[in-house]
């Protein structure tokens, strides 16, 4: 056996670019020591990563680090999509961070470096071909976030959030590792495709109690990362305590990472008969609990946090179709995976736009505040409020937020193609509950401000207007334009997600 592997560096280019960005940011911060330069390097590096990933992904699938037929690095269509989306989200979050960084709330160099590290994890994650690469990538994505969440100087809530997030996340990682170890004990394989093939060929392995335990533990560990109910309790506290841009990153890139990991093991490694019922149950619980609790929230970021818990339920829902035999045909399975991926992409765009909207409507460096702080915002800042409103309506899945509507349609369609009409009905009814609170936030934007009376609000009175930082406005505008474009041409996402 040849010990020296040949390494396909082109396939690894996205990872090189992402990791290089992190290193470059660190060096820039050391040598130039000017916040503007550091942020610019981080943003350019992330953009470069996105471009590089797209270029590599445009070609045929590339594999490297192979042992026989099993490869640890598989850079195909989905990996490219994940890498591009994560890199672009990183750029967006960097833009949203500018006001807070300027206000001196967080150290710029560390902040940008950690964000770039997290991005590296996200870029590697999509291409992971074995369980160890997958878990290490997921940890690379999450680990910097523990620090980022707690990086708001002088904020106790921020420190508390960081500790909560850290403890829960470590437990989740432990569970995931335990699951991977048990699977290795049963099958002797760690490569996802090999695991899948082994479990498919040998039914006696599949029926072992140890396998069931391994599958369950692995899924639970990953469910923590996507904040699926009942493993969600960390999310609202963490989001609310974290700086706004970091909360945006947690609910978009980090959630996407959790989903990609879950998708990878469910699609390629684990037997669908065992994962299907678990995922269906998780999806139903997640969307229902998330929506019901979101109804009672008064703080903007907590509301968005619970809503993103609910959205995770919609993302998982297509995978729930695997619970039924009709949903386990090859065609229905690939439709379900594509639908989950497509929903996730639509969702992160809208969610980023929503967080950009909150950031733009709040003073620089402030937290999300309460819903009352947003009252009457549309009378002071019609454009920003309109963009925020569009994102919220999109998350609710209604026109004019067509991107969100098509996302819901994609999920419902995949479920019905898989014969899971009951789950489609649950998704549909949850959309109604969801509208109740999205509508409350949206209506608050256009409501007259309470305290100074309607006349003063009409005259532009009420709470003082918030000057918007240019970069935040650009991020909000770009995210909104992206949401509108995806609303008119959802086929773009559907095609990419199906690759």
């Amino acid at each position, binding site marked *: 056996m040849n010990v020296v592997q040949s390494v396909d560096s082109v396939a690894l280019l996205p990872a090189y670019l992402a990791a290089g960005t992190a290193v470059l940011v660190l060096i820039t911060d050391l040598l130039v020591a000017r916040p503007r330069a550091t942020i610019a390097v981080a943003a350019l590096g992330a953009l470069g990563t996105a471009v590089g990933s797209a270029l590599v992904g445009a070609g045929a699938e590339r594999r490297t680090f192979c042992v026989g037929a099993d490869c640890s690095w598989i850079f195909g269509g989905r990996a490219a999509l994940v890498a591009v989306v994560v890199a672009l989200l990183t750029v967006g979050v960097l833009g949203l961070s500018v006001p807070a960084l300027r206000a001196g709330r967080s150290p710029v160099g560390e902040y940008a470096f950690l964000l770039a590290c997290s991005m590296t994890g996200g870029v590697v994650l999509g291409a992971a071909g074995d369980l160890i690469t997958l878990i290490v990538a997921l940890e690379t994505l999450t680990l910097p976030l523990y620090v980022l969440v707690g990086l708001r100087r002088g904020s106790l809530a921020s420190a508390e959030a960081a500790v909560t997030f850290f403890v829960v996340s470590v437990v989740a990682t432990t569970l995931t590792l335990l699951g991977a170890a048990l699977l290795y004990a049963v099958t002797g394989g760690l490569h996802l495709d090999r695991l899948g093939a082994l479990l498919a060929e040998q039914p006696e392995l599949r029926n072992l109690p140890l396998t069931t335990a391994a599958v369950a533990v692995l899924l639970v560990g990953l469910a923590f990362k996507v904040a699926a109910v009942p493993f969600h309790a960390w999310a609202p506290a963490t989001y609310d305590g974290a700086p706004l841009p970091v909360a945006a990153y947690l609910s978009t890139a980090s959630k996407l990472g959790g989903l990609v990991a879950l998708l990878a093991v469910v699609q390629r490694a684990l037997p669908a008969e065992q994962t299907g019922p678990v995922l269906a149950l998780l999806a139903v619980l997640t969307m229902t609990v998330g929506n019901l609790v979101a109804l009672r929230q008064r703080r903007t970021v907590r509301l968005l946090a619970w809503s993103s818990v609910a959205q995770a339920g919609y993302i998982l829902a297509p995978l729930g179709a695997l619970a039924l035999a009709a949903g386990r045909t090859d065609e229905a399975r690939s439709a379900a995976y594509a639908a989950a991926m497509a929903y996730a992409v639509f969702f992160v765009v809208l969610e980023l736009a929503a967080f950009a909207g909150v950031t733009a409507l709040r003073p620089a460096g402030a937290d999300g505040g309460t819903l009352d702080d947003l009252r009457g915002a549309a009378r002071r800042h019609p454009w920003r409020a309109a963009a925020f409103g569009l994102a919220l309506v999109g998350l609710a899945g209604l*026109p004019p937020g067509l991107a969100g509507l098509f996302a819901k349609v994609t999920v419902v369609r995949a479920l019905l193609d898989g014969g899971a009409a009951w789950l489609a009905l649950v998704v549909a009814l949850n959309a*109604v509950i969801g509208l109740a609170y999205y509508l409350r936030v949206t209506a608050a934007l*256009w409501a007259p401000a309470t305290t100074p009376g309607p006349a003063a609000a009409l005259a532009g009175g009420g709470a003082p207007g918030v000057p918007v930082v240019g970069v935040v406005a650009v991020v909000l505008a770009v995210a909104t334009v992206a949401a509108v474009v995806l609303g008119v041409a959802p086929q773009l996402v*559907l095609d990419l997600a199906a690759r």
Partner: protein
Amino acid sequence: MTFGQGLLVAVLAVPALGAVAVAATPRDRAARLVGTVAAALTLLVAVPLVFGGRGWAAWSADAPAVRPWHQLDLPWVPGLELRFHLGVDGISWPLVVLTALLTLLCCAYTMWRVPDGGSGRALVALLLVVEVGILGTFLALDLVLFFLFFEVVLLPMYAIIAGWGGADRRRAARKFALYTLFGSVLLLVGVYVVVAAAGTADLMTLTGGAGMSRGTQLAAFTLLALAFAVKSPLWPLHSWLPDAHTQAPTVGSVVLAGVLLKMGTYGLIRVAVGVAPEGARWAAPVLGVLAVAAILIGSLVCLAQSDVKRLIAYSSVGHMGFVLLGVATLTATGIQAALIGNVAHGVITGLLFFLAGAVKDRTGTGTLAELSGLRETAPRLAGLLAFAAIASLGLPGLAGFWGEAFAVIAAVQVGGPLWTTLGVLAAVGGALTAAYFLRLLRQVTHNRPSPAVGQVGPGLAGAELTAWVPLVLLALAIGLAPTLVLGVAEAPVDALIGVVKP
């Protein structure tokens, strides 16, 4: 692109661009004028849709059951089976014209009077967006596109109620939005049940069932009928309607009652019955019973109402009951009755809401107990109110008569103990309708003027007359010459019945 296709696109594009233009015009009055012009242009392009395109006259055996005069079919999202497929035929055209007309009248009315709550500019822009959604629903020949337009209406209408409505507007608006969304998510599931089973979303292919199994058709019909029952609304899913109507501004009520409810009945005829005929045959008795219950309960509740707008709102429940009874019979007569009942209700109830709004604006109250003697102080307004009420209770010679009478006749023609009973009960409901409208008239127009009415001047504003006269004339015209609607609808209804009742 042919002339007809151009018209189809223009019918949607003119109000959509109009809404953008209104939003972009800085001055309020100029913006309202721009909106009114856009609404007028929409009506101008909607009317000529009736000409030409009768190419299906050959009636070949393999012609589809839906034979649009003009159609436009473009791909949009193949991954979701969504095509931009528009078409117009005799079932949809009267509703398209009605929508364009009522929106124009509402915009013109807004030129004269903007309800409290927000700028008139925003109100006109929202009215135009609502118009796009409603017209799109009537024109869509693709199930998914139909669903899309069905959803477009929801939020603008919510904003109209929540922004310009009465004292309790927020609650009413939220109730409207949640109820209606409940209906449309069922529609979404129903649409994809059909698409998953048939492999296409094209209404022309699907009409007649497209070989779907009985189980699928029953499931699809249940979901679709429930969705449309919320929108129509059919008792017992109607409880959003009285609140929404009472709280909405006058123009909101007119659009809501005049055309928004028609999306439900139109959907029931074109989509639910057309796509799942076996399901329709199976559910027809239930639908019939519910329709008659709606007629009776709506009428009885009206007898006990103390608010003018609320009374008219509940009368809509009764009238839509007649429409649904007509559909439930699944006969050519019944469906014709439903179509003309739809149009008549749109014209008359639109007029009634305009008049009720005028009364409320002048007297500051809508409570029946505080209104009396209107004919003493405002004889012309009282006369118009009497005309609209009498038209609505179904006096022969006015528009309301045909829909109600033929729905009853259709039910009796179907025969059998159930349908005969339903027909008789519906007729009793018709008599109750007369009772509560006469009670309304006695209360509001007769007796000595109440303090609130005493200060009302006799004059009518020019804008008011402009908005009302077309509706009065239409109520007369449809009443005297029902063939205006029935003539164009005859061929498509026969084609539909042909596939529903093999």
